[in-house]
């Protein structure tokens, strides 16, 4: 790929990026969130059209305008957003052979028996024990991810792209995936692998390309670079700078959770958060963090357990109960749950405050705007006007809006679920700064994340969650990434 440029709504995401892969190698594509990795790969796979630049395979030059074009050229991709590539109410078989069904290669008729058999064979290769007749909507996230990997195997690819495939996988499953990748490599296929887990990157890949802020930074053989070099290239600065931890006075307990149970994903959670304290809950994807945060916010119902805020037990049946009790949640799925993308920044920021800024039911436009201006200023939200649709903000700024709307509610407890997901580096440290400030104001912070480094840098205490239960507690400075990973994967696996 040569000179690839792409911008969204006037904001440039890729600037003159060059990138090349050889057949028979595993090439890691690294970069901070928002660096443009996925965008580059979507251009390669035809999901997006590039504004400028060209793609060459061998001597031929291509311009892919649709996914079908790039598939024809032998390029197949597992996208980062798993749900965008699966049809939930179709069977596993069909999802595996979606590409084949979508093109005219196969005949007009569908032979279900044959299809299921073939699917069964592919599933076996990746070691997934699943009925091919099952509907995809009933699968877990990791199973869905593996179904997508199975889809790759079902095709005759020359190049495959795996965009953060290991994120939802357990270590065992990831290992199996690496086996498959090696197999592909040996068959002469070029594999592009995107991941945020550096150890696995170094274990499996041959070459590494690093991107930063939409630009190509370096491409090196694995042997010529080490982890800290990669991180420096990714961030453009050293590692510690990323977590500006502010000092805060730790006071009396503000949130107390005892024996909380909800379904399979929250099992007997006990938790205490003090004023001014940042408690991180870490765990692998699928550990149940999101579910815990939703239960604590009344968004999902719990079966057992008590929650008290500021010493008073609260009954959380709906999110509005939680808000009343002084709990705020910044949810994981920003664009779906955190903000209303079609509404203006102004309306988003004032949403939880409608009662406070209205008299007799009538909204005070002045106090609404004043409040919004305050948050935009205080959080450094970059927007051309308060009435801009939030859809046109960058991810980090959207996340700031999702946080900013809770600033005026005087909540005592803030729950942050993966607030840095898909957020660029600058915004990330802004968000850490905001969280630190909240702690300084005496709020209790619960920070749920699967990025262990963040937890280590930010938290006063770290709780490790595995399979719906808190399995280990560390105080600040007690733990290393390896420790966290060890407990997060149930202490069963050794770190590579």
């Amino acid at each position, binding site marked *: 790929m040569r000179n690839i440029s792409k911008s969204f*709504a006037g904001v440039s995401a890729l600037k003159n990026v060059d990138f090349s892969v050889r057949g028979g190698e595993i090439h890691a594509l690294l970069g901070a969130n928002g660096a443009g990795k996925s965008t580059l790969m979507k251009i390669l796979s035809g999901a997006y059209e590039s504004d400028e630049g060209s793609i060459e395979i061998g001597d031929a030059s291509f311009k892919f305008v649709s996914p079908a074009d790039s598939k024809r050229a032998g390029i197949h991709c597992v996208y980062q957003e798993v749900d965008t590539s699966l049809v939930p109410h179709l069977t596993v078989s069909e999802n595996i052979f979606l590409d084949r069904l979508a093109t005219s290669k196969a005949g007009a008729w569908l032979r279900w028996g044959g299809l299921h058999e073939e699917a069964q064979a592919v599933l076996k290769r990746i070691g997934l024990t699943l009925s091919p007749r099952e509907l995809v909507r009933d699968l877990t996230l990791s199973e869905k991810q593996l179904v997508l990997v199975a889809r790759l195997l079902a095709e005759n690819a020359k190049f495959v792209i795996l965009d953060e495939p290991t994120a939802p996988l357990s270590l065992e499953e990831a290992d199996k995936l690496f086996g498959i990748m090696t197999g592909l490599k040996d068959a002469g296929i070029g594999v592009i692998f995107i991941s945020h887990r550096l150890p696995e990157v170094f274990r499996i890949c041959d070459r590494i390309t690093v991107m930063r802020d939409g630009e190509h930074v370096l491409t090196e053989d694995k042997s010529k670079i080490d982890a800290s070099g990669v991180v420096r290239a990714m961030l453009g600065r050293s590692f510690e700078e990323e977590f500006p931890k502010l000092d805060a006075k730790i006071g009396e307990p503000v949130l107390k959770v005892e024996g909380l149970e909800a379904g399979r994903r929250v099992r007997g959670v006990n938790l205490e958060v003090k004023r001014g304290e940042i408690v991180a809950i870490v765990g692998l994807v699928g550990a149940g963090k999101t579910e815990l945060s939703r239960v604590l916010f009344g968004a999902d119902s719990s079966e057992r357990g008590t929650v008290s805020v500021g010493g008073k037990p609260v009954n959380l049946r709906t*999110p509005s109960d939680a808000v009343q009790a002084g709990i705020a949640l910044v949810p994981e799925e920003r664009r779906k749950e955190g903000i209303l993308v079609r509404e203006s920044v102004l*309306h988003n920021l004032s949403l939880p405050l409608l009662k406070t800024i*209205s008299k007799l039911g009538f909204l005070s436009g002045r106090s609404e705007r004043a409040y919004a201006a305050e948050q935009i200023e205080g959080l450094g939200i970059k927007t051309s006007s308060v009435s801009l649709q939030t859809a046109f903000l960058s991810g980090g700024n959207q996340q700031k809006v999702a946080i900013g709307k809770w600033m005026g509610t005087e909540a005592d407890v803030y729950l942050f679920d993966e607030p840095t997901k898909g957020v660029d580096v600058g915004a990330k440290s802004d968000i850490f700064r905001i969280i630190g400030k909240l702690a300084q104001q005496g709020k209790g912070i619960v920070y749920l994340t699967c990025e262990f480094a963040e937890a280590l840098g930010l938290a006063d205490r770290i709780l490790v969650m595995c399979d719906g239960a808190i399995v280990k507690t560390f105080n600040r400075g007690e733990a290393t990434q390896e420790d966290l990973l060890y407990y997060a994967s149930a202490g069963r696996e050794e770190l590579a």
Partner: protein
Amino acid sequence: MKNRLLPFTFKYGALIFIGFVILFFSLRNEYFFTYNNITDILRSISIVTFVAIGVTISLTVDGFDLSVGSTVSLSTVITATMMVWYEMPLVVVLVVPLAVGAIVGLLNALLIVKIRIPDLLATLAVMYIVNGIHKTYTKGYSIYSNMPLSDGTTAPGVMSKEFLWIGQGKLFGVPFPVILMLLAVIAAHIFFKYTRWGRQMIMTGGNEEAARLSGLKVKRVRTLAYVASGVFAAIGGILFASRIGSGQIDAGAPMLMESVAAVFVGYSVFAAGRPNIIGTFFGAVLMGVLVNGLTMMNVQYYTNDIIKGAVLVLALAVTFIHLNRRKSG
């Protein structure tokens, strides 16, 4: 972005379009743009506008209410029977149909919000039920003053003068239904623009889950929206009875499509791309102007629909071509 004219035509395209239509008719017929004719047009759209305000409200919380037409029918015969069969005082005559409209709205809300049947399915079923009820209630007869009853006697009551004034009278030279309609449009606009509840409805419709996670009681908000939709349809039914002086069976059947058409044209006004009260009002105006103007031009009645549909397509195309260009550009 290159062409400065585009955003302008985009935002005001639909209004300019309506302006052109009015200009066209005014030039074609000297009597079109007269005070009396304009107020007549406004009066002719008053009923549809009320129903359309209700549809706008339910669409705002992202729910389609197919039952409004049947609610108009029910409310119009209830209003008439209150006077003709039961000789009730004016207050009762007005309150009962409103209450019934609210009950229909509650039924919709029960099915949609509580049992979680998708909105189109639930309101379709309610549409059948309400239609059946209004016919069963009157045994298929229209209701009019001193109508003969099945036992051979005549009904004791008449459609009262005060009641008929609501639909037929004038205040300061303006037809009273027009005043009512303008008040309702302004009130609904203020409701959505300047009140907490209105904003809550908009936000709920924008993304229910996000609104819920912001602490809104979304179920209550949606329930209220369906009730409001039912009440506005009931007002439409009352006006209907008062305007024609009797309670006709199935009177509301055409109201569903007409009000939906007005609301949809309204999507284009100010390029909102979504339900909005001012847009709905102008949508109703456009439809009313077309009917009136085409009648004056003595166009064959059967071509009216083609013109209506073409106008709808034009108005929608203007908005959505731009809206999508902006999104993907």
